[in-house]
């Protein structure tokens, strides 16, 4: 995980700020600069500094004894050298400090610099900058990928360019100074903003997220993240993806005004974001086109996926057929029986379906087996995860690929209504359509975000999958998030009429949105969802997926209580043809097929 250094502290107030936001390092400048501090002030600041933060002294061709004195007096833990200090100078510092003082050798980057020369340096780290703290970025492509020495990246970093800097160039630490200042002083909001951005690049959403996964997969995940960041900044890739979304998946999807439903409920205006009209009949295609195209660019020849109801499996098989990739899908044995038609559909598309016989034989076990497959074949295979879950970078990647939903919806509602909606509703299993539907509204603080979980036969019964309502924090499937689990942390079996929401956890960003109060999550029972399924079919001539019906059901509850000026956008994540049989069964209707 990338470390953070905040440089150029010069007031005691600055120490209070860093103690609050806890970067890994802070810097005192002892060379001539507007940020220069006296030994006395630095000493006083160090005394107040949180013990988990290390202090770095910044010097330009200073006297060795000055550095050693500051080190002996415990004012600095590390020396950062910005002048023309030689290897010999560094060696002397090391020797005289009995090898306790760590050294950062700062390098002014230019075309002629051969960074690999520094691999053998006795310095502990390099610091790559465009000048002596010029505050400008240098051409990051000068950073050799085969550089072994760990480096601090400095110069012109801010919350906007940090994700790319970290994702693509993998620095040991990022060094920030002037971008955190207003009128020459460190600013709390700027520090907060940048620290949050850095936490996101580490795949953290508050305390949730992370990479809790086998060592065997770690390099592959880091590589995937790097490649993802690279291609998302490559106009050719994004154009290719956008063309596929437009010409193949049928985007943009419609934002449909449900007039009869609105009049019948007698309150807020209801709009449906018609992801059910996408190719393959659900939002899943947005994500798989992105991930399978990325896999292809990365030189992989095979993709694997897990699937519950079969929607994500079908979407992955579809994208794999289109992009000429081998495809294997893991599906719980119970689900292969419940959704036999989708199994055949995947096979038609050229995929191989593995019925998973372990555990509860449903979605979570399919995820387990997909990981087991991937761990054995990382060299030629990408695991195309279907939801905003799993280890970083998956929750971020899937969210970004699904964010097209809210990007379009936000623009569409502004065009149609000239204002933003009162609330956006979406169903939540792992949470990919909901993350996609929420994402571009997160900054619009007046827009309520409401996730609808599978309440099954009731949240007071064992038969539900409402993780955010009933679950506890835990670590599973590569992420720290909220899971349904028993007393000793065993993952609990869950139930929902909807196979797509039948997962014992939720993506980490939803857990974070809940804790921060930005989104709320409500349980919807099977009975309510089936009611909504039937209602929308009759009222609008749209048969919604039973998953999406959970969001429709909540709209039916809250719309009548709202004003006619209010607007609800409901993400209709998929179409319901696949569910007709199970709804008939639920209602006790016998179908002769």
């Amino acid at each position, binding site marked *: 995980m990338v470390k953070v250094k905040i440089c150029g502290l010069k007031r005691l107030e600055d120490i209070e700020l860093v103690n609050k936001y806890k970067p890994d390092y802070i810097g005192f400048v002892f060379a001539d600069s507007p940020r220069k501090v006296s030994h006395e002030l630095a000493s006083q600041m160090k005394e107040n500094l949180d013990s988990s933060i290390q202090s770095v002294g910044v010097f330009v061709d200073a006297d060795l004894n000055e550095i050693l004195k500051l080190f002996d007096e415990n004012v600095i833990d590390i020396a950062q050298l910005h002048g023309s200090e030689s290897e010999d100078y560094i060696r002397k510092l090391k020797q005289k400090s009995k090898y306790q003082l760590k050294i950062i050798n700062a390098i002014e980057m230019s075309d002629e610099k051969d960074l690999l020369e520094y691999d053998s340096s006795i310095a502990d780290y390099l610091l790559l900058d465009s000048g002596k703290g010029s505050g400008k970025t240098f051409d990051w492509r000068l950073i050799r990928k085969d550089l072994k020495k760990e480096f601090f990246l400095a110069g012109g970093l801010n919350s906007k360019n940090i994700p790319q800097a970290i994702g693509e160039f993998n620095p040991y630490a990022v060094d920030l100074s002037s971008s955190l200042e207003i009128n020459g002083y460190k600013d709390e909001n700027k520090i907060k903003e940048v620290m949050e951005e850095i936490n996101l690049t580490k795949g953290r959403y508050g305390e949730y997220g992370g990479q809790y996964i086998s*060592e*065997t997969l770690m390099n592959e995940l880091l590589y995937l993240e790097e490649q993802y960041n690279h291609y998302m900044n490559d106009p050719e890739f994004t154009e290719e993806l956008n063309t596929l979304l437009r010409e193949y998946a049928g985007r943009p999807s419609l934002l449909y005004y449900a007039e009869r439903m609105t009049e019948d409920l007698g309150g807020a205006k209801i709009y449906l974001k018609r992801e059910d009209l996408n190719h393959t009949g659900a939002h899943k295609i947005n994500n798989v086109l992105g991930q399978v195209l990325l896999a292809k660019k990365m030189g992989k020849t095979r993709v694997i996926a897990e699937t519950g109801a079969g929607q994500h499996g079908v979407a992955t098989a579809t994208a794999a057929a289109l992009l000429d990739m081998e495809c294997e899908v893991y599906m719980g044995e119970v689900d292969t029986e419940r959704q036999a038609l989708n199994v055949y559909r995947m096979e038609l598309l050229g995929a191989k379906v593995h019925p998973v016989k372990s555990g509860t034989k449903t979605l979570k076990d399919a995820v387990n087996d997909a990981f*087991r497959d991937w*761990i054995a074949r990382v060299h030629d295979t990408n695991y195309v995860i279907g939801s905003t879950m799993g280890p970083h970078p998956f929750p971020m990647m899937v969210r970004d690929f699904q964010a097209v939903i809210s990007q379009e919806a936000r623009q569409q509602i502004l065009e149609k209504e000239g204002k933003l909606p009162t609330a956006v509703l979406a169903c939540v299993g792992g949470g990919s359509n909901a993350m996609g539907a929420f994402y571009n509204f997160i900054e619009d603080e007046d827009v309520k975000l409401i996730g609808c979980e599978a309440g099954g036969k009731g949240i007071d019964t064992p038969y539900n999958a409402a993780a955010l309502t009933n679950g506890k924090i835990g*670590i599973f499937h590569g992420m720290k998030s909220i899971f349904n689990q028993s*007393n*000793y942390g065993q993952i609990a079996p869950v139930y929902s009429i909807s196979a797509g929401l039948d997962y014992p956890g939720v993506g980490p960003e939803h857990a974070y949105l809940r804790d921060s109060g930005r989104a709320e999550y409500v349980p919807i029972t099977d009975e309510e969802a089936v009611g909504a399924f039937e209602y929308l079919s009759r009222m609008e001539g749209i048969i919604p997926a039973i998953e999406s019906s959970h969001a429709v059901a909540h709209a039916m509850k809250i719309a009548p209580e709202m004003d006619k000026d209010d607007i609800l956008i409901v993400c209709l994540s998929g179409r319901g043809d696949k569910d007709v049989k199970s709804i008939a069964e639920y209602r006790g209707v016998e179908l002769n097929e």
Partner: protein
Amino acid sequence: MSRIANAFKDDCAFIGFLTAGDPTIEKTVEYILAMVEAGCDLVEIGIPFSDPMAEGVVIQDANVRALKHNTTTDDVFEIVREVRKKTDVPLVFLTYINPVFFYGYEEFFKKCGELGVDGIISPDLPYEEKGEIADIAAKNDVDVISLIAPTSKERIQKIARDATGFIYVVSSLGVTGMRSEIKTDLGAIISDIRDVTDLPLAVGFGINTPEQASEISKIADGVIVGSAIVKIIEEHGENATEALKDYVSSMKNACID
């Protein structure tokens, strides 16, 4: 010298794994002691988990059997308490991190320290997430055993530099389970690790025959066997003691040939 260091001090160590509560709590105690009697130098005790993602079918099934009669983390601590009455052999937990997280890190490691659990191996806690438990484990004198995989490459340096106890070298890609041959160039990985640390290196994943153990013992300090032992327990149920002793002693002999 710590119990773990002691296990590696002479010849190549044999490390046996079993899943706690398979087939019962009492039998797990008996089987651990039988393995130690037959020459096992260190025992890995698996805390059963509903979703053992890094395991092959054999150990998955053992988890299912153990959980069928609700083996809990507290039961596993009781196993340790019983075993410690009879032996000083180093004991290491193999556990997914969620049961530990759920139990509470403070409470879990305090108990480990009190009962004499020497280390913990967590297959879903890579270097980047080690901070979850590193300090609390150290405070209670429990080593967090690091895994190094055939894909670790340049990660080897930092993992090995921070490692404690011993290093678990994963022999092959994929999940646990018996393999007829190990294809990874273990010599190269081991030499990369030895450049950074003097800690003992034990190789696991796939090893099940004395021939394989003998080969590995030439380049490593320890041989780890799990699925083959669990398979014996699966086949013999409550009467596995003799079969386990025979197997462990043949493997230990192969290690010191």
